[in-house]
């Protein structure tokens, strides 16, 4: 059977269908001995792809083998799981695979990690709960297990923010690998685990991208890596290449960049062709950051351009494309077109021709100032010629966008009508010449473009008889190679040409009105009517704009009203198909009990997918915010003129090609006008190589114009790319500096205007903030002057609290740290009676005595106002003497300081205050949100960010739900909207207005709480405080 299976594999490999053996492959895996089993599994993995229905039959076998005591069987089962496994069956094997993570054998652990990696790839949310185990695998004592966990991390780190803290570990691992700490058998040609190194370098570059502090951690190891890889072997070069890429990806460091640049130099200059290729590829990557680097290697690049090797040439062109600017665009485009003419690979042509078109369309309209003086004709001809080449080479392989863009450029033009007309005129002339020649080989899309242009602009060209134009176009119609779509284009062009030869047109219309193609027939009829009826022609619009892009309101916001109505009427919210699919899978996975009798389907994985579903509901409403704007745009589906117009600059045209390339300050490139050079050659014939050399130098000078240090800054091409990093080095990184300033400004703003916050923080948590905690916010003190005897002063702090510090000469400093004595807060309710009239009616907390000493006592109380929270501090004189000045210094000792700072970077500046509040004293910053049940329902659907958790239920009273909710209400200032049976809905909002809705349900002895809010962090914090409040109860 094994032999037969191998033969079936052979058949499939040779392209013959062997689907009848699939079932036998599965059987073999099920029943055979060890070797048969392996071949069976192998055949399955070769024959069946992920979605194949027969795979279901394999699940039981895999389950059995995973539980086998034979290591080899476990091993194969894990291998096949990592190769092909039905997605909906993952829950069935997941617990078993997880168990294997702690298997004593490294190979089993390794395979288990790889199987989990596969699960992560096909169903990331099913393995969400085991991220911690990946971390354990990363720190496994066996290097093989660690290496396989890197695959997972490479995927995870694509969104790097949450994995920054692992940077240190990756750096250490790389250091150990470099230091030869791995067993010798990991070496490949005496290089320690090269592929592992490459993997690590990739991870590091992802982590360090645009992140200075993380990048700093890895400078040292990258430096070492560059240094180590000096051995002359291919694999070390592969590592070097990865290293160079990493150096240029992360936050730049001049020293490393220099070394990396030297490496690239070695690559490019290497006689080994493979290395040269790699060098070019690295250079292509690097010039995006530092275009000057290309200058150092210009001669090599020129050589590569003429290289006999197709791949090298192709890569060089890619490199040139990246360094294109307004000055060298003509030369580069010419080189690309040359290459294209000699190339016959379809994919390459499509790829490259698009780039040529992009370049041609991009540069002409951003002409640099100094080109003003050059003849506009020169530029026009270049542009039209280039586009002609693009169309005739690219032909019908072109994407529809390219001809459309070109026509739009022609049609929309610039501010100056004269220039537009010149361009159009030139196009008409050039097309007429083309049409006079052989037209049968021209691609359809070129013909279409030509006929459109002739139809629109032929009237500009006075010297040419209209009859001539009509004759040429009708000639085209007669050709058999012309497709019917093109015929339609031509006919509509004919319609546009004002007075034609009526007889010719009539003939034509006659012959075409019996055409098979209905569109064509209609066109012909229209044409005939037009040419017969001269009156009708009077009405004809002069210019028909036929290229336009309409805007589509992809969010379908106009349906929002309908959707919300339907939702209100009880319709089920829309779920996108993929989600439905997922839920379906989930159901299916749950239903398949027979497979999971020995292993409970992991609950957590289900709850995770469950949890995700509600977030998707709000998509449409999220979009509706800008629907008005969008629909307005959609209403007028007009040309987008603005963007293009501005681009169509009025000045400057491109210079002539090489011979008169603008003088360059390229020391190496001796620029000589071509004529002069030719003259020199005529007088004394030079040896061949030197002429060639000069040619190359000339080419170089024209290619690398604009990249030099002194030359005027390249105008478009590279100005888009980030400026060279070398120059940037001494300054702080731009993004980081900007974030730095924003931080500072927000910091100061928070200081000046958020005094309230800080004092709240202190006021609300007097007993919680031990004096030992780290204090960074030594906040501006608030001082009041008290005079009079035993007069209670209330300090009303509002948002514009002044920051000046009035310190009396002989002040008594009462330190709140005396609270540490933990004497019970003496509640003196009578103090509240002393509140000013406007504050008296506000709800307030208990008055807490903060501190006291023989002469002064301090107590505070919180007042809840709609828009703010007020902290009132009562200062009472305990003695009989008169106290003249009292200085109150409030110091914030904030134990959540670290957390706050970290989160702060993630959130916007204006979130700052709210964040601090939430971190520590959420309980006093929100207000009950009074809504009706219906309003609540609507609001619920519109909110995203949700969190679900089970909480403790207070069971000491008759109605546990009501008791619990009331307890929460008292503790957290919530509003209990409604209680229906075993469910209760509660609402509150932040000071700033952001609502948070809570949905509670009694679930056995627990309270299932589901929170939603537009604010991403709010549900978590509310939840936290609910937990605390219940725990205190």
């Amino acid at each position: 059977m094994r032999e037969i299976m191998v033969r079936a594999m052979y058949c499939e490999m040779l392209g013959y269908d062997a689907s009848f053996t699939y079932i036998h492959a599965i059987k073999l895996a099920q029943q055979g001995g060890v070797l048969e089993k392996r071949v069976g599994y192998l055949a399955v993995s070769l024959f069946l792809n992920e979605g194949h229905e027969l795979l279901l039959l394999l699940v039981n076998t895999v389950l059995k083998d995973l539980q086998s005591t034979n290591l080899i069987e476990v091993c194969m089962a894990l291998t096949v799981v990592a190769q092909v496994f039905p997605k909906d069956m993952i829950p069935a094997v997941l617990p078993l695979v997880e168990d294997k993570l702690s298997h004593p054998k490294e190979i089993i652990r390794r395979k288990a990690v790889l199987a989990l990696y596969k699960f992560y790839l096909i169903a990331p949310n099913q393995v969400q709960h085991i991220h911690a185990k990946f971390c354990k695998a990363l720190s496994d004592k066996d290097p093989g297990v660690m290496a396989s966990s890197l695959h997972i991390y490479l995927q995870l780190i694509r969104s790097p923010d949450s994995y920054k803290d692992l940077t240190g570990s990756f750096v250490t691992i790389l250091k150990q690998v470099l230091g030869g700490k791995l067993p010798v058998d990991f070496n490949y040609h005496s290089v320690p685990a090269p592929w592992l190194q490459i993997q690590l370098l990739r991870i590091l570059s992802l982590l360090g991208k645009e992140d200075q502090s993380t990048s700093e951690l890895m400078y040292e190891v990258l430096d070492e890596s560059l240094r180590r890889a000096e051995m002359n072997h291919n694999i070390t070069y592969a590592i070097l290449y990865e290293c160079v890429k990493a150096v240029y990806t992360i936050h730049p460091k001049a020293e490393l960049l220099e070394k990396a640049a030297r490496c690239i130099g070695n690559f490019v200059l290497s006689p080994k062709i493979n290395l040269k290729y790699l060098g070019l590829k690295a250079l292509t990557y690097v010039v995006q950051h530092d275009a000057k680097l290309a200058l150092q290697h210009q001669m090599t690049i020129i050589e590569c351009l003429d290289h006999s090797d197709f791949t090298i040439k192709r890569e060089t062109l890619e490199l040139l494309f990246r360094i294109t600017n307004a000055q060298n665009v003509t030369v580069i485009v010419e080189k690309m077109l040359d290459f294209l003419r000699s190339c016959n690979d379809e994919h390459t042509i499509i790829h490259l021709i698009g780039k040529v078109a992009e370049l041609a369309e991009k540069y002409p309209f951003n002409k640099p100032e100094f080109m003003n003086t050059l003849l506009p004709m020169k530029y026009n001809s270049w542009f039209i010629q280039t586009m002609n080449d693009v169309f005739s080479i690219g032909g019908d392989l072109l994407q529809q966008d390219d001809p459309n863009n070109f026509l739009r450029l022609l049609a929309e033009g610039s501010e100056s009508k004269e220039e537009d007309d010149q361009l159009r005129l030139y196009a008409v002339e050039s097309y007429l010449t083309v049409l006079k020649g052989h037209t049968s080989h021209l691609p359809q899309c070129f013909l279409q473009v030509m006929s459109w242009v002739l139809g629109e602009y032929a009237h500009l060209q006075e010297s040419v008889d209209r009859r001539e134009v009509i004759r040429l176009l009708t000639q085209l119609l007669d050709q058999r190679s012309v497709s019917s779509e093109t015929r339609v284009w031509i006919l509509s062009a004919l319609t546009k040409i004002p007075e034609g030869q009526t007889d010719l047109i009539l003939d034509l219309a006659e012959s075409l009105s019996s055409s098979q193609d209905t569109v064509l027939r209609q066109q012909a009829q229209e044409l005939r009517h037009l040419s017969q009826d001269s009156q009708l022609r009077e009405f004809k619009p002069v210019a028909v704009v036929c290229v336009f892009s309409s805007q589509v309101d992809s969010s379908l916001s106009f349906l929002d009203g309908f959707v919300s109505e339907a939702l209100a009427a009880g319709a089920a919210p829309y779920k996108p198909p993929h989600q439905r699919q997922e839920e379906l899978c989930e159901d299916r996975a749950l239903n398949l009990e027979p497979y999971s009798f020995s292993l409970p389907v992991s609950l957590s994985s289900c709850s995770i997918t469950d949890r995700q579903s509600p977030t998707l509901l709000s998509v449409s409403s999220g979009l509706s915010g800008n629907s008005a704007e969008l629909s307005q745009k959609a209403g007028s589906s007009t040309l987008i003129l603005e963007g293009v117009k501005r681009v169509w600059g009025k000045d400057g045209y491109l210079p002539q090609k090489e011979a008169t390339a603008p003088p360059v300050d390229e020391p190496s490139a001796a620029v000589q006008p071509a004529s002069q050079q030719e003259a020199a050659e005529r007088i004394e014939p030079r040896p061949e190589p030197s002429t060639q050399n000069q040619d190359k130098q000339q080419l170089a000078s024209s290619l690398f114009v604009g990249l030099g240090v002194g030359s005027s800054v390249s105008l478009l091409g590279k100005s888009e790319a980030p400026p060279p990093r070398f120059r940037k080095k001494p300054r702080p990184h731009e993004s980081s500096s900007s974030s730095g300033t924003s931080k500072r400004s927000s910091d100061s703003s928070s200081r000046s205007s958020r005094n309230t916050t800080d004092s709240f923080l202190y006021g609300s948590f007097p007993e919680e903030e031990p004096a030992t905690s780290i204090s960074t916010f030594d906040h501006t003190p608030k001082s009041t002057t008290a005079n009079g005897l035993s007069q209670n002063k209330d300090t009303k702090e509002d948002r514009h609290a002044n920051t000046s510090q009035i310190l009396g000469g002989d002040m008594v400093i009462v330190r709140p740290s005396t609270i540490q004595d933990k004497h019970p807060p003496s509640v003196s309710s009578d103090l509240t009676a002393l509140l000013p009239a406007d504050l008296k009616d506000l709800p307030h907390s208990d008055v807490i005595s903060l501190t006291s000493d023989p002469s002064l006592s301090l107590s505070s109380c919180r007042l809840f106002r709609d828009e703010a929270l007020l902290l009132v501090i009562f200062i009472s004189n305990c003695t009989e003497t008169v106290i003249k000045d009292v200085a109150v210094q409030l110091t914030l000792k904030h134990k959540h300081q670290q957390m706050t700072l970290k989160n702060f970077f993630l959130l916007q500046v204006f979130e700052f205050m709210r964040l601090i509040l939430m971190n520590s004293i959420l309980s006093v910053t929100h207000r009950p949100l009074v809504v009706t049940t219906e309003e609540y329902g609507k609001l619920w659907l519109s909110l995203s960010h949700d969190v679900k958790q089970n909480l403790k239920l207070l069971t000491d009273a008759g109605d546990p739900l009501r008791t619990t909710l009331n307890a929460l209400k008292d503790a957290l200032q919530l509003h209990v909207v409604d209680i229906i049976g075993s469910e209760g809905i509660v609402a509150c909002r932040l000071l700033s207005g952001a609502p948070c809705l809570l949905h509670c349900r009694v679930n056995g002895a627990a309270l299932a709480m589901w929170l939603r809010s537009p604010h991403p962090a709010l549900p978590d914090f509310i939840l936290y405080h609910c937990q605390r409040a219940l725990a205190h109860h």
Partner: protein
Amino acid sequence: MIKFLLMVNKQGQTRLSRYYEQVELGKRASLEADVVRGCLARRKEECSFVEFKDYKLVYRQYAALFIVVGITENENELSIYELVHNFVEVLDKYFSRVSELDIMFSLDKVHIILDEMILNGHIVETNKTRILAPLLALDKMAES
């Protein structure tokens, strides 16, 4: 990412093929033919990487046998080039002086070795002893 690995001889006969991305059975033969043509057309002094459709081919020749790997743009060509050599070294170690015939007649074993090295288009193991360990264990069990 690695898209496929082929072993083809100079006559264009496929000796081994492994796809890490679903390719229809009918399309495989024409793809392989194209790939072989692309590689055979290249001369010794040209570089071992060829642009092919929207991905790259890395090839290496051993006597009359070509090993061709199709990779995506973001993969490191030279490391794949060396991976191929590592693979051949492993085969050499197992078959002791591997030849085209070995690959023809023990297709399953070559596949098992390959499965240990590349999984889902990623390089998962390059340590020779570890690559061979499961296969040697299998052989041992089959003997007894």
